[in-house]
């Protein structure tokens, strides 16, 4: 009886803490947005230009497919959806968890100190404390691409949303895992940036142009293949095994990133940096 009471009490405590964290995260997002809106012109310029930037890439692809109507089974619509999923996924992850691309420099420059003093879960606190303005343009671009060439049914929308979720979480976890290298090797910003660039580059080209070993790498070590194959394996025809493997990759990289972050944190030494969070 007493065990049951304590379990109930434990669950209640856990729920109370989880809802506290959720409220904190929501407040951070609101403040990030409010801070961005302080410089309204910059906000619209950056987000708008990123949208245009992505659209210009599609001009290249339109020209390319005008010359080669189908390449290894891929057509212009598939590449447009690939960009929709890739840019859209990267967009939402970078809007909500904008510091994930900065983990290496945050650790190397001792900026973690200020977060360590706050009574909030450290990793979530660090991630939600930044917001990328350009990423809003990326996310909107993804939505517009879906509106233009996506499948406008309930199932189609659900598949696209799943694609966005897989893509965003993979960008988040892989980049976070790469950023944690700074705990182990000091200034690892360069390596982390290269891994991030490689992930972005490989996830914006059709997966089927790669064969053999490269393809294996793209579905394991550098899981860009789970993003760049989504227009075929998820949107064009629902391939259950692809989706399950993609979900497993998301879970595996999520666990790896969290594990590396906490293992690295034990090695973190303060930079005695005095800073304030505005």
């Amino acid at each position, binding site marked *: 009886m007493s065990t049951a009471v304590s379990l109930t009490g434990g669950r209640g405590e856990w729920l109370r803490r989880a809802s506290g964290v959720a409220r904190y995260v929501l407040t951070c997002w609101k403040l990030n947005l409010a801070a961005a809106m302080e410089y309204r012109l910059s906000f619209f310029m950056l987000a708008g*230009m990123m949208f245009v930037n992505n659209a210009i890439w599609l001009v290249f692809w339109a020209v390319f497919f005008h010359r080669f109507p189908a390449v290894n089974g891929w057509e212009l619509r598939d590449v447009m959806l690939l960009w929709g999923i890739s840019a859209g996924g990267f967009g939402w992850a970078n809007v909500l968890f904008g510091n994930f691309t900065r983990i290496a420099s945050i650790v190397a420059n001792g900026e973690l100190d200020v977060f360590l003093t706050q009574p909030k879960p450290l990793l979530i606190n660090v991630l939600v404390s930044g917001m990328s303005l350009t990423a809003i343009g990326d996310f909107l671009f993804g939505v517009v691409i879906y509106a233009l060439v996506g499948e406008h049914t309930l199932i189609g929308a659900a598949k696209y949303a799943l694609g966005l979720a897989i893509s965003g979480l993979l960008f988040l976890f892989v980049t976070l895992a790469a950023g944690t290298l700074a705990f182990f090797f000091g200034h690892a910003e360069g390596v982390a940036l290269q891994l991030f660039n490689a992930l972005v580059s490989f996830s914006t080209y059709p997966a089927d142009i790669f064969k053999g070993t490269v393809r294996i790498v793209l579905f394991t070590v550098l899981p860009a293949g789970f993003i760049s194959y989504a227009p075929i394996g998820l949107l064009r025809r629902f391939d259950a095994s692809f989706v399950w493997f993609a979900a497993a990759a998301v879970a595996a990289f999520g666990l790896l990133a969290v594990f590396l972050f906490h293992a690295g944190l034990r090695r973190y030494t303060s930079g005695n940096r005095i800073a304030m969070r505005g």
Partner: protein
Amino acid sequence: MMTALAKWHKYRAVGVISVKQQLKYRVDFLMRALMLLFLMFIFIHLWSAAYASGGARAIEGFTLRQIIWYLVFAEAVTMACPWLCVRIENEVKQGEIAVRLIRPVSYAGFHYMTYMGEAALRFVVQLAAGSLIAWACVGPPAFGRGWAGFIALLPGAVTLMFLLNLSVALLAFWIEETRGLEFVLQKLNFTAGGMLLPLELMPDRLERICSWLPFRAVLYFPARMGTAFDGGMFRVFLLAQWGWIAALALVCMFIYRRGVRKLNVNGG
């Protein structure tokens, strides 16, 4: 005469310091070279798949080998050019420009020599990295006089890239953020400038539009001459390139004069 010579020595010194500064950032060089290797690796796969699907040995006169070397030249120039907008934007935001403006060196001239110094060194590294992967995948280049054409058009290409970037960067005198515009400018160079594919491969109407824009003089001209040299075309390209340089220099001068009058700086 002496004044001109003294001025030249002053600007040359800025360029030399820029090169020396760059030599200290070896890791940065390595990282940029790695990035070019990634991109070339992807392009080689993409174009190999495209040529295989098309079945033709040459498209608009370009063989697969020529296309890959074209991309190496265009990418090497692109990745050699530093980001200028961030630099000028930070100078304006942090007030550093106040110190820069009172120096006895032209503001644009200082940035031009710094830019050229950085680009020169980076270009050598980028070309070496690109050549490495292209040579291994599609074989050595055999372009005869194309190398001379490429080298002759190179200084004008980097100068024009600088002027295009400067025309956007100087907008920092009016607006907070210029990075977004720089991204767009970069992508215009990628597409209308012919970095991602030679302009001959574009639909006719688009090719005609691109021929009226300055972007093709930055990447397409040198890369096209490097891979498929044509004496008559070379003279036209050279003339057009320096024509655009003159026009954009005037535009930049106009923007600078308007902007610097409007600038209020506190700090530096």
